[in-house]
């Protein structure tokens, strides 16, 4: 009995129907949190003593970077669940998470570059964190490229799940090695501000933005998953009913 909810999760139909009710709430929460966080962070949080107003990009940069990494683990864990319990739905979530994660990684890199120009005087530095993020982007792109190469979805699902898992094992090693590489080649001019010593007046808007980004991520992931579920399950009667029975002609074309 205790595992019933878990097995129910495996049903795309159950997931689709259940999440219909969540979507507006998630959208509202992310809209409110990101709206409040942006106004608070951009308008009311104090200026940074050294960097002036340019530091304010952290309100987008940091949440995007958090989620870029968390997104990889979400992708890999749902892939692993799919491989272990042969759960259709979790493969769909994995496939949906890949492009979202790639976009977030790109946003983190892009905002980092924009931030780097006024702070370091250059858009791109081969800094440990930047390099790690770039490699993370390549890992995402690898998963996306692999998923597109297969003609059969089920094979693509399993192959991507395996690649994502291999990447997960490697991520800590890659991060540590890039860290080590950076300390070896460290240019003297760049110094990161200590993240832990951030002032509360800057931290709370940042926290709001992070939670807002998590809500937005959840919303995007679920929306993307729902779309993929409809695409994959279009033959089933519940999807045809949902679409108003007009897919009878489509089914011949497919």
């Amino acid at each position, binding site marked *: 009995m205790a595992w019933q909810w878990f097995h129910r999760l495996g049903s795309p139909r159950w997931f689709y129907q259940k999440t219909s009710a969540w979507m507006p709430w998630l959208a509202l929460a992310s809209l409110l949190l990101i709206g409040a966080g942006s106004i608070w962070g951009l308008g009311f949080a104090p200026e940074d003593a050294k960097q002036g107003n340019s530091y304010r990009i952290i309100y987008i940069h940091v949440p995007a970077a958090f989620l870029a990494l968390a997104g990889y683990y979400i992708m890999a864990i749902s892939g692993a669940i799919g491989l272990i319990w042969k759960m259709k739905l979790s493969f769909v979530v994995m496939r949906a998470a890949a492009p979202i994660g790639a976009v977030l990684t790109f946003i983190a890199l892009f905002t980092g570059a924009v931030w780097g120009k006024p702070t370091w005087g250059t858009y791109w530095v081969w800094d440990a964190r930047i390099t790690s993020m770039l*490699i993370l982007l*390549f*890992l995402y*792109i*690898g*998963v996306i*490229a*692999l998923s597109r*190469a*297969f003609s*059969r979805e*089920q*094979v693509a699902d*399993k*192959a991507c799940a*395996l*690649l994502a*898992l*291999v*990447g997960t*094992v*490697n991520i800590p*090693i*890659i991060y*540590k*090695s*890039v860290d*080590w*590489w950076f300390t*070896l080649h460290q240019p003297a001019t760049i110094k990161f501000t200590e993240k832990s010593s951030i002032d509360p007046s800057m931290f709370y808007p940042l926290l709001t933005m992070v939670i807002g980004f998590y809500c937005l991520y959840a919303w995007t992931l679920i929306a993307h998953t729902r779309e993929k579920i409809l695409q994959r399950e279009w033959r089933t009667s519940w999807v045809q009913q949902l679409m108003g029975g007009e897919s009878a002609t489509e089914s011949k074309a497919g």
Partner: protein
Amino acid sequence: MSSLEQPVLDYTPRARNVAGFVALLRSELLLALRRSADIANPLLFFVTVLALLPLGVGPEPDLLARLAPGMIWVVALLATLLSQESLFRGDFEDGSLEQLALAPQPLYFAVLAKVSVHWLVTGLPLALLSPLLGMMLNLPSGGYLSLFLSLLLGTASLSLIGAVGAALTVGLRRAGLLLALIVMPLYVPVLIFGTGAVQAAVDGYAYGPQLAILAALLAGGTALAPLAAAGAIRISLDN
């Protein structure tokens, strides 16, 4: 070979695995040695690309010496990668891979045998050739041994990691670039510690730690990569 003709049931599982591993290793090695072009091509690629480097950046000895460790490592990495696309392809196309997957021996050992042979015919020659290229690129002579040793350990890890990518893409028709795309990010730690070892040696520091980490990566890779590759082969066979 006569021992292989006995009924399989006579073996203990361990002896059966070892016998299967050794038999596959022998046959793969024989096959590889009889297709000598497959051995020569990665080496020729290695030499040719590195010969292009001075043409691109100019013949200044100091500049070449600075670039040498990184360039030799990157090109060795590419040579390993490019030779890896065909790792499982022939066996996949003629059905042997399916037989290996059905065999009583775990697929792990079959993958390990194939990767070992791949390393013996590409990684090992690359490592042996590297001091020569180091000399041509004006690498300080203190770096030769570390270059050789780091490539010796590192290319084995590269072969293991690449095997996972090769197994994932074996069922696809044009896998070359895709293989590079999915495998390259996973090569990063090996590249960093490989060039790190050479750079340390050139600068006159101890390079034992870097080699130890490369050896650790190899140990971890030997344990895990064939498992992942075996899983990937089973997925590809479903395609």
